[in-house]
C-alpha cells in the first residue's frame, strides 16, 4: 500500500466515525458547531500522531503481555499535555470541549490505531496513518458540527447564513444522533460509488 493511500484511507474508505464507528462519544458530544468539531478533531489528531510515533518506536522494547497498559500510559501522557496546553492557550475552546479532552484517553480510535497499526508497522507508516486517521476524524467532526450548526442555528463557523432561529433540536442531543445516522448512510453510498 502506497503512503498516499495509507494517508487518504481515513477520509472516506475507513473513516473512523462514518465507517469504523469509533470515537463516537466526542463525535456526538462536542459537535454543536463546526469550530468545536474542528478543535476536537485537531486535538485528537495530535494525540493520535504522537502516540502512533512513540508506540511504533518502542514496540520492540515492550513485552507483548503488558503492551496494552503501556500504550494507555503513552496515550494518557499526550492527552495530559494536550489538556494543559489547551487550557493555557485556548481557554474558550477548552471550556466548550470540557470533559471530552481528558476522555481522549479512552477514545477507541487512538487505542485502536496503536494496537492495530503502530505496533506492527514501521515509524514512517505509523506517522502517516496517525495523521491520516486523525485528519479523517477531524473531517468527520467538522462536517457533523457544520451540518448541525447550519440546521440548528443558521450559522457556519460563526458566520450567519440565514436570519432567524434555526431548528434548535439539531444543536441539542437528539439532532446529533439523527444527523450522524444520515451522514453514515451518505458515506456508505459515496464509498460504494468510489471504491
Amino acid at each position, binding site marked *: 500500500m502506497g503512503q498516499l493511500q495509507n494517508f487518504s484511507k481515513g477520509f472516506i474508505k475507513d473513516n473512523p466515525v462514518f465507517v469504523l464507528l*469509533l470515537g463516537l462519544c466526542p463525535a456526538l458530544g462536542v459537535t454543536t458547531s463546526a469550530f468545536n468539531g474542528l478543535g476536537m478533531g485537531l486535538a485528537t489528531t495530535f494525540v493520535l500522531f504522537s502516540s502512533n510515533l512513540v508506540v511504533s518506536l518502542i514496540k520492540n522494547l515492550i513485552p507483548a503481555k503488558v503492551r*496494552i497498559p503501556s500504550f*494507555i500510559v503513552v496515550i*494518557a501522557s499526550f492527552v495530559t499535555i494536550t489538556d494543559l496546553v489547551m487550557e493555557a492557550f485556548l481557554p474558550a475552546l477548552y471550556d466548550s470541549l470540557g470533559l471530552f479532552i481528558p*476522555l481522549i*484517553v479512552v477514545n477507541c480510535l487512538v487505542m485502536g490505531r496503536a494496537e492495530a497499526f503502530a505496533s506492527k508497522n514501521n515509524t514512517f507508516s505509523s506517522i502517516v496513518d496517525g495523521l491520516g486517521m486523525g485528519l479523517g476524524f477531524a473531517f468527520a467532526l467538522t462536517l457533523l458540527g457544520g451540518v448541525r450548526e447550519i440546521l440548528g442555528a443558521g450559522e457556519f463557523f460563526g458566520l450567519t447564513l440565514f436570519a432567524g432561529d434555526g431548528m434548535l433540536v439539531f444543536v441539542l*442531543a437528539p439532532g446529533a444522533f*439523527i444527523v450522524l*445516522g444520515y451522514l*453514515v448512510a451518505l458515506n456508505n453510498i459515496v464509498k460504494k460509488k468510489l471504491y
Partner: protein
Amino acid sequence: MEYIIIIIGAVFVNNIVLAQFLGICPYLGVSARVSTSIGMSGAVMFVMTLATIVTFLIFNYILVPLDITYLQTISYILVVASLVQMVELILKKVSPALYQALGIFLPLIVTNCAILGVTILAVREDYGFHLLEAVVFAIGHALGFALTIILFAGIREHLDLMDVPKGMRGAPAALVVAGILALAFMGFANLV
C-alpha cells in the same frame, strides 16, 4: 431526599448516554440483543461504583494534598484498567456464575468512556460531593445507562424485522432510533 434527587437527575435529566454522550461505543456495540445488554449493564454498574469509590479516595486523599491533580487522567485510567483486571480475577474465583454472565463484558469496559467520565465528574468542585453522594451519583448514572441500553436493545430487536431502506440498514437506522429516544428523554429536562 438529597440522594433521590441525585438519582433522578442522573437517570433521567442528565442521562449518561442520551444527554451526555458517554458510553456510546457499548451502547451501539452490545445492544443487538436484550440479554447481552442486561449483562453489559450489570458489569458497568459493578465497575462504575467500585471505580468511583477508589478514584474518589485517591483524588481527595492523595492527588489534592500533594497538589498533583494534573495527574488525574493518567492515575484514573490506570485505576480503572487495573480494577477491571482485579474484578475479573476475583469474580472467576469467588463467583463463577456471575463471571459467566459478566465475563466477556469486563475487558470492554476499560475503554468505556462512561466509567472514566463519571469518575471525573464525581470529584468536580461545583458538585462538592462527599463519598456517599459520589457513590449514589455513580449508581444513578449506571442505572441510567442500564435503562437506555435495555430500551434501545428492545427497539433494535424489532428493527431487525422492519423493511429499512438499503442505505440506512444497520448503524444509520440505529443512530436515528437513538436520536428519537434522546428526543423522548428531553421531556425530562428541568425535572429536578
